[in-house]
């Protein structure tokens, strides 16, 4: 099939893929609960930092308790919306030889993966809703920006964040083609991600060199960037600039992912499952 024909096939298949993906996501109710509970780290951090801030005359390094509440709740929401488990899925499919089935389809596997994970976003919105409500009703909502343009840019940033996260995880997944137990690598990734994306601790609280280093990694643009945008830390011009950088990273990761995937599949087909 020509590239054009494949692309057309992919586009035509997408609505169905999405619908099936959503049904799949709904079918496993308990897994959903588990996944929900996995994202509790920001809440723990929230508990920690608000106590620490309360102790120190209301602030820790210029962050008040409200600052922390706003930061971590938004972080939690963005993380839940953009996270996915495609890395685990790819690893599983390679191990069990199920990848062959996916390769037989006339649609590029990235599309099928993306569709099935993107399809769960509506469900994730439902999960995230309680936190959004808590934030909206608490005093911390004053920390959020009121500028509608910024909010719109925030939405764009979240979308870019989703794609970037997806591509990064797929790239990591490709390593499963080459390394036996790549799940160890995933642990390293999680650790590095937690620091450089601001998931564990807001970036301004970390030493300067960490912040500078983070700028050069995709991690910052996977989480910290949208969060900081919604918190109104930048003006519109800055955000547009950062958005540009985010999409630059998307392009880079896409290229790497495609290349690595092709190399990996060739290896997979040579050596078998």
């Amino acid at each position, binding site marked *: 099939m020509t590239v054009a024909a494949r692309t057309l096939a992919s586009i035509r298949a997408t609505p169905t893929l999405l*619908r099936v993906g*959503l*049904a799949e996501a*709904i079918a496993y*109710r308990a897994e959903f609960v588990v996944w929900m509970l996995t994202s509790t780290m920001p809440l723990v951090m929230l508990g920690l930092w608000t106590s620490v801030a309360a102790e120190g005359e209301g602030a820790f390094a210029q962050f008040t308790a409200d600052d922390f509440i706003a930061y971590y709740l938004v972080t939690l929401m963005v993380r839940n919306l953009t996270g996915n488990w495609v890395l685990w899925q790819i690893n599983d499919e390679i191990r069990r030889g199920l990848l062959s089935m996916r390769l037989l389809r006339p649609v590029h596997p990235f599309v099928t993966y993306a569709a099935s994970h993107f399809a769960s976003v509506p469900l994730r919105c439902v999960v995230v809703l309680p936190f959004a409500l808590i934030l909206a009703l608490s005093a911390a909502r004053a920390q959020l920006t009121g500028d509608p343009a910024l909010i719109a840019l925030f939405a764009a940033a979240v979308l870019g964040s989703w794609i970037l996260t997806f591509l990064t995880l797929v790239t990591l997944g490709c390593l499963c083609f080459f390394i036996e137990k790549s799940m160890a690598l995933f642990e390293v990734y999680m650790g590095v991600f937690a620091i450089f994306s601001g998931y564990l601790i807001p970036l301004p609280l970390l030493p300067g060199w960490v912040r500078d280093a983070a700028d050069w990694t995709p991690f910052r643009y996977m989480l910290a960037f949208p969060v900081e945008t919604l918190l109104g830390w930048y003006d519109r011009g800055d955000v547009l600039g950062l958005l540009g950088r985010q999409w630059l990273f998307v392009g880079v990761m896409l290229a790497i992912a495609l290349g690595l995937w092709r190399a990996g599949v060739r290896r997979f087909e040579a050596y078998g499952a």
Partner: protein
Amino acid sequence: MIRTTELKKHYRVHRRPPGLAAAIKSVFHRKYEVVPAVDGVSFAIERGERVGFLGPNGAGKTTTLKVLSGLLHPTSGGVEVDGFEPRRRQADFLKRITLVMGQKQQLIWDLPPSETFALNRAVFDVPDAVFRETMDELDRLLDLGPISSKPARQLSLGERMKCELAAALLHRPTTLFLDEPTIGLDVSMQVAIREFIRAYNERFSATVLLTSHYMEDVAALCPRVIVIDKGTLIYDGDVPSLVKRLHPDKRVSFTRTGPIAVDQLERLGAVVSHDGMRVVLQVPGDRVHDAVVHMLGALPITDLSIEDPPLETVMRELFRASHQSRKSS
């Protein structure tokens, strides 16, 4: 000694109609229905018998085996194996039985089967001397050779199955439940496993209850068959009687050495196949004698043989008959 009395096993299953709306609804409210997997089955098997358990997919064979081995509690009815009530899963009971499931494996995947053997030995508390003796016999009967020291994942399906059997039998159980042990294996391996089961049964006077899709396996190994369909028992007896009851026709095949008119053939019986010089006829049982006498006397033929129709055909007839009677009742 295996005995069941009006054994019933019903499941609650969640049914979900297709479509997105239904999918969302099922998150909050699930509808269940009752599926009768086994619906009133009674039979008795004596020590040392080899019994085949036949039936189409979903008939309830695996469920029955699981109830007999204590993995499932029956919904109602009596079950007794070797004087024990399986559902209680007492240690003494578990040491006397074994269940081999052809589609699931118990060998540790990354290690040689010998490690699984060592583990089972420890779990079943088999004394060293007995273990050595049993392993030597199993080694001999199954022709294991060096394969038990290669990691399980490197073995072929047939080799794995042999090791699975060894692992399942090293505690010398006297009651064997075998669920599709030869599934997916090639013909020569099927024969080898079949012979092994027969040897084990004779050597240790073990009771064997075997399910299989391969009718020939069952017919060759088991003098008695129990047939289940949709959870009810529809036949319990030996194979020849079953064949005679359902399919009193015989298959007569021969090679013709000269031309034979078609209507001449059709007068003798229904033509099943006419492949070049080889002819196969289906002849009603009571006319076989006369037909054969006529053939040998009057027709140019050689290599005459008389057989029962294949068990597959017989079984299909049996299931069709049971479905008819179910529909009319």
